[in-house]
């Protein structure tokens, strides 16, 4: 490979950043807004410590939609036809979509954590061990798990359906679907004994990731190459 030619995966991620920039901006923007409210608007440190780690995964899911948008666009515009004609396997197309979603998630997560924790520390909020524990055992794994789940469901859904645009499309509905397991885990974890909280969240993230892997495996078996042909 020529040194001046980037890899297919890197090109896909780069395009995802461009295509999904609006969702990326909304995800980071809303996350920042909530951080500002928690740091400057709340009257106690507890509000930040208890709320901040829980809300970040929701914005990560929203901001990662660019991966799904790129996948859907590539299918509709016939890019996948060419790639399959060149011998690229459909599973590789799915994996590239997931890596793109993961890259966006990493960006939002990195931004939210750096800015959120930085502002909190600057304002004198005590960054307790419990806060760090929540971030490591809930925020980070659930952000990636939720985003990858959203991307996987959305990609399979858009491959199986006719192209639609707007809120009624897989891209429009996927964030709601993607946020659902994150919220569900939160509700279950919060209603159970507090000593079990992290077991529930880490276990749930692991289950979601396993689900993503299973869906990915099934997608290769269940979806023929014809699913990647442009409907135009």
């Amino acid at each position: 490979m020529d040194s001046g030619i980037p890899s297919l995966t890197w090109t896909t991620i780069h395009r995802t950043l461009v295509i999904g920039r609006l969702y990326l901006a909304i995800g980071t923007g809303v996350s920042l807004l909530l951080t500002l409210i928690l740091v400057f608007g709340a009257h106690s440190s507890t509000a930040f410590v208890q709320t901040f780690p829980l809300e970040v995964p929701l914005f990560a899911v929203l901001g990662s939609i660019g991966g799904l948008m790129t996948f859907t666009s590539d299918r509709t515009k016939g890019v996948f036809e060419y790639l399959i004609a060149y011998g690229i396997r459909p599973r590789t197309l799915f994996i590239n979509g997931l890596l793109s979603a993961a890259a966006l998630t990493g960006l939002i997560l990195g931004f939210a954590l750096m800015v959120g924790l930085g502002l909190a520390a600057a304002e004198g909020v005590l960054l307790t061990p419990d806060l760090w524990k929540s971030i490591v055992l809930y925020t980070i794994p659930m952000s990636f798990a939720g985003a990858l789940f959203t991307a996987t469901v959305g990609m399979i859904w858009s491959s199986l359906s006719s192209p639609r645009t707007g809120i009624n499309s897989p891209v429009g509905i996927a964030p709601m679907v993607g946020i659902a397991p994150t919220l569900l885990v939160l509700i279950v974890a919060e209603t159970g004994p507090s000593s079990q909280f992290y077991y529930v969240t880490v276990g749930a993230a692991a289950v979601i990731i396993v689900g993503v892997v299973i869906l990915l495996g099934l997608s290769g078996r269940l979806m023929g190459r014809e699913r990647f042909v442009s409907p135009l």
Partner: protein
Amino acid sequence: MSSTPLPALARNAPNGGHRIELRGVSSGYHGKRILEEISFTIEEPAVYVVLGPNGAGKTTLFRTIAGILNPYSGSVEIDGVDINRHEARTRLQYLSHIDGIPDALRVEDALRFYATVEGATAEDIEAVIGKLGIQELRKRFFSELSQGQKKRVSIARVFLQERNIYLLDEPTANLDPKLAREVRDLVLGLSKDDLVLYSSHNLFEAKEIGKYVLALRAGRIGYFGPLSELRPAKYIIGVRAEGTEGVLASSSKKGDYYLQELAGPEEVPKLIAELMAKGVQIREVKEMENPLEDLFT
């Protein structure tokens, strides 16, 4: 016309052994068969024009040969290698009727994207940019281009790497006449050494560049053979001439042309000789019907 599988055309042609072979291929989408029992072998370097009305299965045929669609039955082989093997994919180039250029990329980045996939080099990219004359487009976003410009970029992609088999689905659609001519010249150049399957709705274009015709009708082969052997149901020529009083005056006219129905092209010299003997000053003689039109009826 026969819809039964036809034997290979020019099997012993000296082309370096490149071959497309379909055996009993049925293919389509989501279980619905568009192509039924398609069988043919082509080996001779030439342009094979694929014709047929909308819905006949032309694009499905291209997608199946390119390995994008998996046949429900039968097999597709490229140079004797099953199309499902990567080795076969690297022997052909496919141009879809859709542009297939990813969103959010400038033209040169789009070519770099496909160079990534094909294993082409930066030099290859520069070469196709020069070959297709798209230097002025290279920094522009693909989404900003006109339909014709988009098609040029899409065609440029096909030439990133030299191959011996080209599947070109409506390559001149949306192109202005000048560029369409350049593309046809490019294709004719390829056909000296390579196999080119070429679909078009323009019958005059098809007649101009095609050596063989593969006509599809309702997913089956309606005709597969040399274009030169196609004969229209009626062979009608038009004669533009002066001094026609009492000779051609009673003939029906289409524009400036007096129409004459003949048994075939072999009768044209005889007709010309007869008219000239009667004092008619012939300015032009041309065929008034394209034999390919019959393939659509």
